[in-house]
């Protein structure tokens, strides 16, 4: 699988502060890469270094196989970006904004411009917006227009920072479907977000940034793989302990966590002992648990399990 984004020892210092402290990103073609981190953890600085807006203090950035920022003129026309909030010229219409941005750089043929603009406006749900100036747009419409600008040249790589910001639940759902559709047709998506739920629904791979360090980078499926325990829902957890002594890992009000990766076997044992069971499921850590565990401990200790570097 080809690598789309690779950084080696990427570092950005502002005076004494290390905003980004030696990270090795590895994003492969076809990924939806969820880039997670609290506010101020260095996400935005990293995204800006990928796009050549901020120059690294040390380390290397490679995007689509070429060195950034040196090869920006060749690489960036193949990348669509939404950097923090969308920004447009308020006195111009959405179409005029897209046309100006498209004309401002290489790789946007004038001949196809009009049809490309109509196509992306349709894709993001702004086809009927007319000649209204952008300053009359709602927050959600601006977000959609920003997404349209990112899609204008059918990029191979989409770098999106909080793409569902300001959208209502319906809009979030539409954008999610759109991103999954684009990903199916071969677009790699680099999604920077602090919304765990959003990343959990979209991402195939996840990187977690904590205070400038990449503390976790792995397949989402591997991170949230079953732990080998079964969660039993029951009105009487104490009887579970009696029936399966030594296998109980935790007890709650109405549930018990039992060692054993086969719920059917656990169920049979409990039913045989006459324990009422209202629900059974394999225990999986949620992404939230994974992220909290990775980000709360010290950075170099979390590196060892899970993270492949």
């Amino acid at each position, binding site marked *: 699988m080809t690598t789309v984004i690779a950084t080696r020892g990427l570092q950005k210092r502002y005076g004494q502060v290390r905003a980004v402290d030696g990270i090795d990103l590895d994003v492969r073609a076809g990924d939806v890469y969820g880039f997670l981190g609290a506010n101020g953890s260095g996400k935005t600085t990293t995204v*800006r270094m990928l*796009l*050549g*807006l*901020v*120059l690294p203090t040390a380390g290397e950035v490679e995007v689509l196989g070429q060195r950034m920022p040196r090869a*920006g*003129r060749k690489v*960036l*026309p193949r*990348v669509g*970006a939404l*950097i*923090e*909030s*969308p*920004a*447009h*010229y*308020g*006195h*111009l219409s959405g179409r005029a904004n897209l046309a*100006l*941005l498209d*004309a*401002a*750089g*290489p790789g946007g043929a004038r001949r196809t411009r009009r049809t490309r603009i109509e196509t992306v406006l349709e894709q993001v749900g702004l086809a009927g917006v007319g000649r209204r100036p952008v300053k009359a747009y709602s927050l959600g419409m601006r977000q959609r227009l920003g997404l349209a*600008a990112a899609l204008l040249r059918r990029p191979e790589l989409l770098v999106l920072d909080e793409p569902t910001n300001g959208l209502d639940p319906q809009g979030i759902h539409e954008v999610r479907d759109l991103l999954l559709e684009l990903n199916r047709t071969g677009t790699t998506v680099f999604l920077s977000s602090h919304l765990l739920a959003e990343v959990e629904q979209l991402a195939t791979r996840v990187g977690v940034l904590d205070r400038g360090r990449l503390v976790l980078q792995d397949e989402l499926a591997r991170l949230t793989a079953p732990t080998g325990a079964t969660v039993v829902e029951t009105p009487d957890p104490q009887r579970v302990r009696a029936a399966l002594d030594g296998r109980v890992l935790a007890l709650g009000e109405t549930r018990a966590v039992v060692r054993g990766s086969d719920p059917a076997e656990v169920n049979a044992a409990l039913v045989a002992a006459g324990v009422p069971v209202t629900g059974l499921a394999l225990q999986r850590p949620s992404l939230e648990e994974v992220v909290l565990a990775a980000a709360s401990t010290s950075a170099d200790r979390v590196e060892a399990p899970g993270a492949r570097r």
Partner: protein
Amino acid sequence: MIAVELRKLFRRPRTWVTIALLNALPVLVGVLISLTDLAPRPGEGPAFLSAVLTNGTLYPLAALAIVLPLFLPIAVALIAGDAVAGEAQAGTLRYLLARPAGRTRLLVAKLVSVFAFVFVTVIVVAAVGYLVGRLFFDVQPIGGTSLGGTTLTSAQIVQRTLLAIGYVSVSMLGVAAFALFFSTLTDSPLVAMLGALGVLVASSLLFTLDAASSIAPYLPTRYWLAFVDLFREPILWRDVVRGLGLQAVYVVVLLGAAWANFTTKDVTS
């Protein structure tokens, strides 16, 4: 890229509002003088204004002299200061650079559009001045016009008015270069504009100070009014040439600094 910047500048309502406001003062002055017939005496008030009652074709020059000390530099500093800092403040700078517009290309395009604004503005002021002169004052079609002791034919006046328009434009390029340089330093267009105006105010003040006479020849506003010398017979080229040279030095140095700063800075806006 240059076409994009020109389109952005001249499709923006603010550009034309600025130019319109800039023309309001010379028009008002023209109306007042023609109504009252009270022109300032020779040697007082803005240059050429004393002569417009006898020859309306001089009004473009009077209009330029009226706006030159303050309004024209403000307008130029406003647009040039907004060039990069305005995009940074609006957030569009990061999208232009990620497009990628290329930092040097973007700066050159901004420069060309700012220079275009300077020329368009000066020409509009002169054109509106010409209309005001035709409408409100007597125009002497043929024969000589006396101007501070020299007599010029109308062909000479036309020719020298065009030279004066060119000279005033070049003088304003220095202002534009200051504002554009400050514009790459800050993310606030207001700060960039005020920085450029601060330089001009300081320069005008130092110019009047005897103690600063040793640096006076290098002040950016020193030769601004030298376009008056174009209307002497024969033309006094000395200050005009020095003024052009001085502006060229300021433009080259400041644009070099703007380029060095802009191509190496972190865009965090």
